[in-house]
């Protein structure tokens, strides 16, 4: 059995700072790492590998040259090998462009049974890639999966986490599966695994290798145009109360009554 896990590299969102206007994000020079949902997907693939015999886990990612470094974490966690599609165009591609790239790479990898992705990414959380990849490959999808069971014969059972219910969906492979963070707790690779990760095979492809390029992936092909991307304008009162604690509470209750939010 072969499982391909699609991973996205995201900036460290806790380190996002803003220009003096307080609204324009400054992203230059921020460190990047593999996204959290993707690690859940990878962890699950590795657990399946540990449970069943003859499972190969491939980490697939598309993005910038920095991936060569960040993919080592996936290899240290236990992926057998990595395939990277590197191209500057991918840094500015929209969901459709990324999905096209991943789908082409999945076809080039050849036969596989399950493609695992995160239900969304830490940064944009649009969650479009799994569905789009599935359509491009003509495959069914099981999304929002919080429990996953893959039998040796390739039958896949995913428990979907919906608002009010859990829905168990079964499907023959190959299938595209997106996972939630409740699925598992990703392992922290031991130092020996980190040291060995550098020796695992990493194949690097370009968009051209996949028959893609500026006419299919890139800003001109973007289906969604961003008009602005700013922090919301602050509208809170930001009033820190002072005086002794009882006085603060009295003032707070007076304010809340005045605003009509308590009765």
């Amino acid at each position, binding site marked *: 059995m072969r499982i391909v896990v699609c991973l996205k590299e995201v900036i460290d969102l806790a380190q996002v700072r803003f220009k003096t206007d307080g609204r324009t994000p400054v992203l230059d020079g921020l460190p990047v790492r593999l996204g959290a949902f993707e690690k859940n997907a990878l962890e699950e693939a590795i657990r399946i590998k540990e449970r069943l015999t003859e499972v190969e886990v491939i980490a697939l990612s598309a993005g910038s040259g920095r991936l060569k470094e960040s993919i080592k974490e996936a290899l240290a966690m236990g992926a057998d090998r990595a395939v990277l599609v590197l191209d500057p165009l991918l840094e500015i591609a929209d969901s459709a462009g990324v999905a096209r790239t991943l789908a082409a790479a999945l076809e080039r990898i050849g036969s596989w049974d399950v493609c695992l992705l995160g239900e969304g990414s830490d940064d*944009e959380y649009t969650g479009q890639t799994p*569905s789009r990849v599935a359509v491009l490959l003509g495959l069914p999808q099981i*999304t929002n999966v919080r429990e996953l069971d893959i039998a040796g014969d390739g039958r896949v059972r995913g428990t979907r986490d*919906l608002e*009010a219910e859990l829905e168990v969906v*079964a499907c023959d492979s190959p299938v595209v599966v997106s996972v939630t963070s409740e699925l598992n707790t990703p392992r922290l690779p031991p130092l020996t695994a980190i040291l060995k990760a550098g020796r695992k095979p990493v194949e690097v492809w370009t968009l051209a290798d996949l028959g893609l390029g500026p006419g299919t992936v890139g800003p001109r092909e973007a289906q969604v145009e961003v008009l602005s*991307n700013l922090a*919301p304008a602050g509208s809170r009162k930001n009033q820190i109360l002072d005086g002794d*604690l*009882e006085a603060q509470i009295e003032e707070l209750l007076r304010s809340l009554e005045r605003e009509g939010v308590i009765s």
Partner: protein
Amino acid sequence: MSGVLVYSDRDDLAHDLSAWAAAQREVLGEPTAAVLGARAAERAEACRAYGAVRIHVCDAPAVTDLLDDAVAGVLAELVTREQISVVLIGATRRGRSLAPRLAQMLEAGCVSEAVELGLEGGRIVTGRYSLGGNTISREWVRTPIQIIAVAPGTVERAVPGAVGGDLITFEGQVNASRAAVIERRDKPGLETNIADSERLVCFGRGLASEEDLPLVQDLAEALGGEVACTRPLSYEYGWLPEERMIGISGQKCSPKLLVSIGVSGQVQHTVGIQGAKTIVAINTEKGAPIFKQADYGIVGDMYKVVPLLTARLRGGRGGGAAMKASQPQE
């Protein structure tokens, strides 16, 4: 533009979006809707009061389970046949994965969870959370067909109007999903809808122990509200069920009053409280980011502040019972 198609697996969202589309009819064209799945005819009848001029009804067994590929197949055929240019989908969890499936089938651009929806210069402009909730990305879909999944609560709650709109039975091809639902179970502990609560008390890691939960529960009770928490308290510690978790991956709430206790104010959480009318923050750290999101802040130890606040709300002054008679409880 030649028309809007509205669909949601949650009927109330479909009604809200129908009413919104009907109000924009001059710009966006005819509003239509699709009602799929179990009891579709009956549910379509209820949809007639929300402005759609045609309601397509499909209760074929192949769509009963509302799996993405089967539903997307029906909607794609409707879009093509009816020359629809805008599809509005309720951004439930099903809707969030259906929308991009449909978009890819139609080679269309898609916004998968709009939290703002408006018209500017004759085109639909949406806003969605970006950069982990730090920012709102305002964008428009450039493709001839636009697929937009709209988060619950984004457009006004619709009120039923005159009953109109023709019911049309879907006659096209319905392809069964290649997946199958083999079991459904209700989520355990589903007891409240935080998203609809008027008053919330939300706690974070500042609460030291599960045994201290009554502290926040008492305050919530005194306010006539519900208890909620941040992600780690639910997913990591399991102190509250996940439907009480507020944040980008949990509930988005819009209460009149939210009292935030011992919450640092990471953006992944505060995305979920932006709809609150008034926010009170209680935290020992003066520099905690939550104070930037709050209207009123008390810098102090929650174990001292919260009991006093609760007692005062219950009618006592500083924990005494003197005010009880003059301040009856709700």
